[in-house]
């Protein structure tokens, strides 16, 4: 028995909504670019050609070239891989750990729930970027560290989300029923609670991927995430910032890419939410 819409049903979006179409379109395009980067990128994103450094956009280089003569479009296309990698892997880390803890806390309650609640409150008292920076200081600056740091930040978010949803589900009679027939706690959590809270999780995940991408660019901008020569968008903005007056394309182009990507994931998340909201979707 379920009280929520089937979690896989939410992928059937309402395509009459413009936001949904744009969101799906953007995310689809980003995913496609990431997968087909070697086919789409016109040049090697790491190739230096210092003769043509800092060229403005032209027919040969649509988005111009950077300080080392690298093609910005090619770096932008390869940058989608880093953004998606960080966005998806970090929410998976946060999601798996956070869901497991949140599910257990919401189901068993008691002292375990109190400790988890205290832990979550402490973690969430830090702004996302600040907590990520604290974690990175311990791990050392790199893309992998950024993924782990953002994943750690998301653990508390998932715990709070899943714990609350689990508590709602456990108050339903069917959970008492499966308890009475002697099903194990693990089975109840995995078979009867988890499927019913997955829709909430997926909605928030799509929104948090956007947050993760944004956080990665912030960390890379600060020199704490991706390191040279990785074509992270945050690195590209940082490198181009000093030339904003005379070569604005260096920072503006990756800035627009981040804006569009974050917008895409947010629109997608909104669509999921609207679709599963009983008040909006009768």
């Amino acid at each position: 028995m379920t009280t929520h819409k089937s979690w896989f049903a939410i992928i059937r979006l309402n395509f009459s909504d413009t936001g949904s179409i744009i969101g799906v379109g953007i995310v689809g395009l980003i995913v496609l670019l990431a997968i087909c980067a070697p086919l789409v990128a016109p040049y090697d994103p790491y190739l230096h050609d210092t003769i043509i450094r800092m060229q403005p956009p032209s027919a040969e280089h649509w988005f111009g070239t950077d300080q080392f003569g690298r093609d910005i479009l090619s770096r932008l296309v390869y940058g989608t891989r880093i953004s998606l990698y960080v966005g998806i892997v970090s929410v998976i880390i946060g999601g798996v750990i956070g869901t497991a803890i949140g599910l257990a806390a919401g189901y068993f309650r008691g002292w375990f729930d109190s400790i988890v609640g205290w832990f979550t409150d402490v973690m969430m008292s830090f702004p996302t970027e600040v907590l990520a920076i604290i974690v990175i200081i311990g791990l050392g600056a790199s893309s992998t560290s950024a993924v782990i740091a953002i994943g750690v930040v998301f653990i508390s978010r998932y715990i709070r989300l899943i714990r609350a949803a689990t508590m709602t589900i456990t108050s339903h009679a069917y959970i008492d029923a499966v308890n009475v027939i002697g099903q194990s706690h693990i089975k109840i959590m995995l078979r009867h609670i988890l499927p019913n809270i997955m829709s909430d999780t997926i909605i928030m995940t799509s929104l948090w991927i956007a947050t993760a991408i944004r956080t990665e660019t912030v960390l890379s901008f600060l020199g704490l995430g991706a390191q040279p020569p990785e074509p992270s968008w945050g690195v590209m903005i940082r490198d181009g910032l000093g030339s904003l007056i005379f070569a604005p394309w260096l920072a503006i182009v990756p800035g627009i890419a981040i804006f569009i990507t974050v917008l895409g994931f947010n629109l997608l998340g909104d669509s999921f939410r609207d679709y599963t909201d009983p008040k909006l979707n009768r």
Partner: protein
Amino acid sequence: MSDCIKKYTFFIYLLIIFFIAVELMSNFSIAFFVIFTLLVGNTFANSAKLADEQKIVIGGVGSDIKTLDPMFQTETMNDVINHYIYSYLTQSPYGTMDFENIEGDLADSWEVLDDGRIWIFKLKQGVHFHDGNEIFAEGEAPELTSEDVKYSFERLKDPEVGSPHAGEYNVIDSMDIIDRYTIQFNLNAPYAFFGQIQTYDFKAGAIISKVAAEKMAKKGNWGFEYTIGTGPFQFHEYVPKEKVVLKRNEDYFKGAPILETVEYRFMPDLNSRTLAFIAGDIDTIYGVRDPIWVKNIKAAHHEATIDAVPLGSGGVLHYNMTVKPLDSLLVRKALSLAICRETFANIFGSVRIEQTSIVPGSYEGALQKDQMPEKLLYRCDLVKAKDLLKKAGYADGFTIKAYSSPRPTYKNVYIVLQDAWRKIGVKFEIILVDHTAYITKVKSNENDVVVYSADRTPVADSYLSEFWHSSAIVGKKTGQKNFSHYGDVDADGDGKIDSVDLYIEKARMEIDPAVRRKLWGQAQLQILEHAAAKPLHVLIKVLGRQKWVDLGVDFKGTMSWTYPLEKARILAH
């Protein structure tokens, strides 16, 4: 006003021709007319109307400053501000970098005894420290004496004080006060350039007040209230993250400057700095060593003067020979051969001068390109580089790592190296850290390779002593910037330690310039033969000033990262 002068230039010339004609006719003395002509010229030159407010605003780097203690200065902004606050024993002539003709700053004269082992400086009399501050009330600042000079160098060298520049004056063994205005430096070895190294303010040779210094705890940095020197401007105000304001030293021993106020504004963001300069909100700018920036700023603000100061920072790549596989001569040669200087020429263009030896070419005693064997130029040759790696047993490459400063003059070089070595299969990991952390890490021996840019007193000894003498090896008590550990390692694999200490020390004692140059040349050849470093380039300094900033001198250069302002004035605009 200058436009006005230009307008009437034709009439001035007419007037001069008229008087010459009269002189020829009336047999007046030539001298009279020369004097007359000069007077006319000077009258017009000095008649440029001054601005009502004699204040100069420097658009400087850095977001804030921790100290103005000259013995703890590590940042460019310290150098700039302290340049105006403090005086030194000697200096190059105002507005020049003429180190062959150095003159006394605080020193009135000096004599060299015992083949350069003993230096006796006679100080100028009547030089007073800045007054009207928390330490010295108005008119109560003490006169500078030899006690202050002795105290300044003792504090600098005191390990308890912990100055990062302590090692730079290792050559001083002891000091004797001969009288109130005479001090004798006893060096531990003859040193022909002791006079020259005093001129360079980044070496922390500023003379401080003993009385003021003793009012604070001996250890650690000074607070701003102790920033008391004898220079043309004195500390007035510090606004965190905004500015440092200096006021004219009315009692400056060379005569009070015309400028009343010097304001150093913290402008870490290049875009803000550039826009403020174009808009005329700042009077001078700390430029960027990027040819594209220079070209664009000239185009956007053609009335301004952009000065490229020819004596710049020599950029050298040092291999840490204590790290595997960089202990192998073959590997180091391969890495050097993979680097194409042409790439740097494309990136740094007009702000770069090629450097083929480990001492910048403009320095006295530097080896020039035509004095070096072709093989030691390590011209780009990827095939040979790969071949050498194969011979060294690294055909599949290896991984090395380095921290990098985010400053373009470092970061861009590291990224170019990364690309160059990628082509021969060597993975080079770069980790960006802030500039201060970078300096700390390279001095703590944490980098496999070190790119270091430095401008020093332009004699080969300053570079060789600081970067290649065994006493300067990083990590040692006397350590400075010998990042390669040259002098402590077997660089060529013959089982013996290789060193150039003897050449450096002999050259210091040598009076004959030709022999001295030969010794320095031998040291440079040996280091290059052992591929302990790859010279990359000299990046020249870029400074900009508005058309209304009159420096009062035909500006030829400065060792500091700022303009000399002792004689400067702001014209009406």
